[in-house]
């Protein structure tokens, strides 16, 4: 594939990804919030790896759980929003624009922290489910999915550094005729 076709492919897919990230960034937090809000209490307890509470949850408690569960999605949504300037820049054919480094870095931070938050949300949900009951429960889990997300975030961060190096090379290359 020659350079022109490669650049066209990058621009095409970047535009599609920019649109997809926009949709995801806007839709993800409310979707997670509504899903958790409508989840039956026994399923909520199962997802928090604790026993279901003996009595029904108050609407305030359910709302609090939905808010807590939405935090990772909210952060990821911010990360996707922050990534968009890079994708828009790729879509215009400017792969080494100054905006790219910052956008990738913010996305990596959002990915990493949202994975950490996901780990914290499970025990937090368990604690909230236990509020007002005699017996409390706490469960902390760290899965391969969380680890993979953190590794991906680290990879994106390194990619951001590589983009800075590439931008310097590109700037130098432009001084050759």
């Amino acid at each position: 594939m020659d350079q022109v076709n490669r650049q066209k492919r990058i621009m095409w897919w970047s535009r599609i990804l920019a649109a997809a990230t926009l949709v995801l960034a806007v839709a993800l937090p409310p979707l997670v919030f509504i899903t958790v809000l409508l989840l039956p209490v026994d399923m909520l307890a199962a997802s928090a790896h604790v026993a279901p509470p003996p009595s029904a949850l108050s609407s305030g408690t359910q709302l609090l759980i939905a808010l807590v569960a939405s935090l990772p999605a909210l952060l990821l949504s911010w990360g996707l929003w922050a990534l968009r300037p890079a994708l828009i820049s790729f879509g215009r054919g400017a792969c080494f624009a100054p905006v790219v480094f910052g956008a990738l870095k913010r996305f990596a931070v959002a990915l990493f922290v949202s994975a950490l938050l996901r780990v914290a949300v499970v025990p937090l949900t368990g604690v909230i489910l236990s509020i007002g009951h005699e017996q409390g429960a706490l469960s902390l889990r760290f899965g391969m999915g969380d680890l993979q997300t953190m590794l991906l975030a680290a990879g994106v961060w390194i990619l951001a550094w590589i983009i800075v190096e590439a931008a310097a090379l590109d700037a130098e290359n432009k001084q050759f005729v």
Partner: protein
Amino acid sequence: MQIEVHLAVVLAQRGVSGRALAEHIGITQANLSLLRQGKVKGVRFETLAKICDYLDCQPGDLFTFRRD
């Protein structure tokens, strides 16, 4: 130490305009102007070959090395 560019001289000797050369080698007139003034970091072999071909000269006619 620096490389001196004699492209302007060779162009004048051949009676070729910068515009015609820029068009032939496929670079902008702005870049050719920078090359004439020696204000570029380097010249690609591809560009150099096209210049030499068009002006019927050798690379040594275009550049000299001067020790400060």
